[in-house]
C-alpha cells in the first residue's frame, strides 16, 4: 500500500513499467494505429513515439541487429517483429490484485447489477491469474432491497422517464415528481437513483428505500445538457456554508451522532462535546435533535431553540387534557 512506503520515484518507475507493458501490448495488436495505441495506453502519441525509439535500442546481449527489439513503423501503424523475450506483461503486484479483486467483489455484491454471474466469472479468472495474491483477506456484503432495486434498474436500463412518489426526510413530506434517470449507484451501503428532477429543475439523488411508489412513463428519459453527475467520492451530502449552522451540547451517551451525521466541528467541554453541524432544513433538525436522546441540548441558532421549546410545550399540552 502506498502509505506504507516512503515516496517512491514515481515518474521513473511508471516509465519503466509502461515500457515493459508496451511490447506485449503491441505484440497482441499487430498493425495497430499509433494514435489508437496511444489512446488505449492513456499516453500522448508523442510519448508513445519516444517510448518506441527507446525500445528500438534495447534487446538481448550482443545487441546486434538480430538481438534488438524490432518493429515495423509503416506510416501510422506499428507492428512488433521481435520482442527480445518480453512477450508478456509483468504479473500483477499485490496492490493491483487487491484493488481489482476487492472492486470486483464489491460489484458482485451490489444488488441490482443484473449480470452477477458475469462478474463472478471475471472475478474467478482474475483470481486465478493473480495466484496467491488474489487471496485477499477482504469480505464484502452490501444490503438492500434487491428486488425493488432490480425492477427500478430495469426501467432505467430501458431509458424511460419515471414517475416517483418520494419521501423527502429533510422536509418530512411525500411528493410526486417526474424524473429523467441518469444513473444508479451505491454509496456507503445505500442505493441511489441520480436523476434530473423536472419539478426541482435540477439533478437530485433519490434514495431507493424512500421511493414509495413509481411507474415507468411511455416517454424517453432526456436529462438536459446541464444535468451532470455529482461527485460522490466523499459521500452524498455536501453541506455548503450557506446552510444554517446548528450548535449542540452533546452528552456522552449521544456522541455517536458525530459518526452518523456530517459535523463541522467537535470540541470537548468537560464531559460534554460542543458540536456544530450544517443542516438543510431547521424542521429536520428539530425532529432529529428532539429524538436523539436525553443528553442533547441545542444551543443555536435561536430560531431552532425556540422551535424545539414551542413544539415540545404544545405537544405536552395535548396530554394535559386527556380528552382533547
Amino acid at each position, binding site marked *: 500500500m502506498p502509505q506504507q512506503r516512503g515516496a517512491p520515484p514515481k515518474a521513473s518507475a511508471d516509465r519503466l513499467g509502461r515500457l515493459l507493458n508496451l511490447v506485449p501490448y503491441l505484440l497482441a495488436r499487430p498493425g495497430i494505429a499509433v494514435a489508437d495505441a496511444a489512446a488505449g495506453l492513456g499516453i500522448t502519441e508523442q510519448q508513445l513515439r519516444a517510448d518506441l525509439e527507446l525500445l528500438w535500442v534495447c534487446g538481448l546481449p550482443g545487441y546486434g541487429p538480430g538481438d534488438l527489439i524490432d518493429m515495423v513503423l509503416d506510416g501510422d501503424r506499428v507492428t512488433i517483429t521481435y520482442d527480445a523475450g518480453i512477450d508478456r506483461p509483468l504479473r500483477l503486484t499485490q496492490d493491483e490484485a487487491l484493488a481489482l479483486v476487492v472492486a470486483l467483489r464489491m460489484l458482485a455484491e451490489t444488488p441490482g447489477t443484473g449480470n452477477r454471474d458475469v462478474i463472478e466469472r471475471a472475478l474467478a479468472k482474475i483470481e486465478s491469474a493473480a495466484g496467491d495474491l488474489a487471496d485477499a483477506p477482504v469480505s464484502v456484503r452490501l444490503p438492500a432491497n434487491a428486488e425493488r432495486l432490480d425492477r427500478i434498474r430495469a426501467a432505467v436500463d430501458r431509458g424511460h422517464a419515471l414517475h416517483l412518489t418520494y419521501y423527502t426526510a429533510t422536509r418530512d413530506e411525500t411528493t410526486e415528481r417526474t424524473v429523467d434517470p441518469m444513473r444508479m449507484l451505491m454509496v456507503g451501503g445505500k442505493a441511489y437513483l441520480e436523476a434530473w428532477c423536472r419539478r426541482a429543475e435540477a439533478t437530485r439523488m433519490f434514495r431507493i428505500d424512500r421511493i414509495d411508489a413509481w411507474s415507468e412513463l411511455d416517454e424517453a428519459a432526456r436529462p438536459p445538457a446541464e444535468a451532470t453527475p455529482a461527485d460522490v467520492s466523499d459521500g452524498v451530502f455536501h453541506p455548503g456554508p450557506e446552510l444554517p449552522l446548528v450548535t449542540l451540547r452533546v452528552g456522552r451517551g449521544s456522541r455517536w451522532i458525530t459518526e452518523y451525521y456530517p459535523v463541522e466541528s467537535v470540541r470537548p467541554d468537560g464531559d460534554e462535546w460542543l458540536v456544530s453541524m450544517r443542516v438543510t432544513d431547521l424542521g429536520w433538525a428539530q425532529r432529529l435533535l428532539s429524538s436523539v436522546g436525553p443528553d442533547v441540548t441545542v444551543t443555536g441558532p435561536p430560531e431552532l431553540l425556540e422551535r424545539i421549546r414551542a413544539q415540545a410545550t404544545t405537544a405536552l399540552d395535548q*396530554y394535559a387534557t386527556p380528552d382533547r
Partner: protein
Amino acid sequence: MSRTRTERLVNLVICLLSTRRFLTAAQIAATVPGYEHDPEDPKDHEAFQRKFERDKAELRDLGVPLEMARPNAFDDELGYRIAHREYALPDILLEPDEAAAVGIAARLWQHAGLAAAASSGLAKLRAAGVEVDPQATLGVEPVVTVDPAFGPLTTAARERRAVSFSYRVPERDEPAVRRVEPWGVVCWQGRWYVVGHDRDRKASRSFRLSRIVGNVRLTGRAGAYQPPANEDLIEHVSRWSGPVAHNGRATVTVRPGRAAGLRRWAVDSTAGADGDVLTIPYSDPDRLAATLVGYGADVRADGPPELREAVIQQLKEIVARHENVAAT
C-alpha cells in the same frame, strides 16, 4: 529517470530473462550497456555497486521477481536471473462482457492509491490482449472507498502479522491502544471493519476502520498466528445489527396531512375525530417515543400507556433542558 537509466533497466530485464544461469554482478556489468566501469578502481567499482543496488531496488518495487542464488558450488558471489514463469502474467481469457466488468471495477475506486493500482493492473490485462470497452456501464455502480487503515490491515491479515493501533470510541474521551491479530477486513452496510483476535481481551473482536486514529503498526513476525478455519468474518460484524422484531402495536393520532415520515411506518390508518389514527409496529417504546417526540404537536401517542408515559417524560425533559439555554 534519465533515458539512459530507463534503457539500462530495460536491457537488464531482458538480459536476466534470457539467461538460465545466474549471472553475477561482474558478468552483468560486462554485458549490459550502462554498467561499464573499471573494477580495479575502488571508487569506480563502488559507484557501480551503488548503481546496481538502486537498479535492483527499482525492479523489485515494480514487482519484477528477481531470483538470487550462487551460480555454482564453487562460487561465493551471488548471481541473478528472472524466471519467465514467475515474471509473466499467466494467460487470461476474458469474454467481452467479463472484460467490461473488470474495466468497470477498476474505475470504482475513489481511494487514490488503490485507484492507481487498479488502473495499472488493468493496463497489464490489456497488454495481455484483453480488450476493455471503456464505455461499458452496469446498472448499479458502487462507489468504493476505504479508510487509510485498509492497506496496512489487509497486508497484516495476509501475512498473519499482529498489529497495534489507537482506537477512538465516541463514548471514551481518549483513544486506547488495541493489540490485534487481524483475520480479515470486512465491508458491511457500507462501513469497513477489521475482525481478529484481541490480544488484551483474549477474545475475537471487530473494529471499525474509521475509528482508528493515526498509523497501524505491524508488530512481530509474519505467520505469527493461525486464523480460525472457515470463519464467516461478516457474521462477526453483522450479529450486532440483526433485524429487530416489531411486535408491539402503538396507536397514534396524526394531524391531517402531517408527519409524512411516520405514516410510512403505519400498518393501518383510519380517519378519526381529530386526525388520522395510525397503527405503528414497534419494538422498544422508548425508541418509538423519541421518534414521536420529534413530530411535536402533530402527533399524539394514545397507547399503550407505557408509550404515552415515555412520550410525556421525554417531552418534559426536552422542555427542561432547553428552558434556560442562552442561545449562542
